[in-house]
């Protein structure tokens, strides 16, 4: 099995992620998805997408249910670029929304980062 990719999180996106108001266990799951899925097998987990300005970007998106609130879902999106060294993945943009069932649009509005 090949080495995992280095997942590079630029400072601004790191700050945005730190500012997300999410439970600690959800944050752990989010980071483990980045480490254990994205870094290990990006080809499997990334979806090719195009940015609104026409640049190819890869999307890594998933949802995490809230353990304490069954009506709540945490939704994450990471826009990812392959590094020039082909050993790293750059998290170029990040997005998060929280949705509560029966309360459409609850939590942070879109877009968030």
């Amino acid at each position, binding site marked *: 099995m090949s080495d995992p990719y280095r*997942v590079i999180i*630029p400072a601004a996106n790191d700050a945005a992620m730190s500012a997300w108001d999410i439970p600690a266990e959800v944050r752990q799951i989010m980071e483990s998805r980045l*480490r254990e899925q994205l870094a290990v097998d990006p080809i499997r987990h990334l979806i090719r997408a195009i*940015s609104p300005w026409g640049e190819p970007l890869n999307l890594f998106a998933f949802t995490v249910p809230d353990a304490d609130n069954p009506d709540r879902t945490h939704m994450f999106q990471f826009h990812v670029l392959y590094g020039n060294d082909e050993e790293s993945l750059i*998290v170029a943009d990040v997005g998060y929304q929280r949705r509560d069932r029966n309360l*459409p649009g609850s939590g942070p509005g879109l877009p*968030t980062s």
Partner: protein
Amino acid sequence: MAGVTYKIAERRTEVVEEVVEELQGSFTEVEFVSGVQQLVAEVAEFEDLMCRVTHSFRQGIQPETDPQTIATAHGIAYLLNRVSALFPRIRDLIQVAVRRSGQVNGIERFENAEAAVTRMRKDFESKWPLPDQTRVRVAREQVAAGQYRIL
């Protein structure tokens, strides 16, 4: 996978982009004015076309939305931007055509379509998690400057 309507809209947008480009070249006055007139009529129909493209995406992202659908939404956002960008370019051509011939028909419908597509684009962008060009540029700059952490 993108739907049939999306593919049709994408192809029509490409063709209109090509025609707008071609009309920058030299044409006889009659050919030019006729070309602009046909363009105006064509893009006026983009309101209905893009309405159909965005129809099933109107609710925005939901907890059950799968990643592939989010990626498709990215493509639609790109298409909406391309369609929006056509209107000012065609307006420039209209002004030239009006100077040459005195009249281009269907301007009101053209303007209504432009306003509708703009509203559609803004509404779409507010409901889907799309990347931001400035944030992506800053991310690249920060990586180049060594301002990052490795997870």
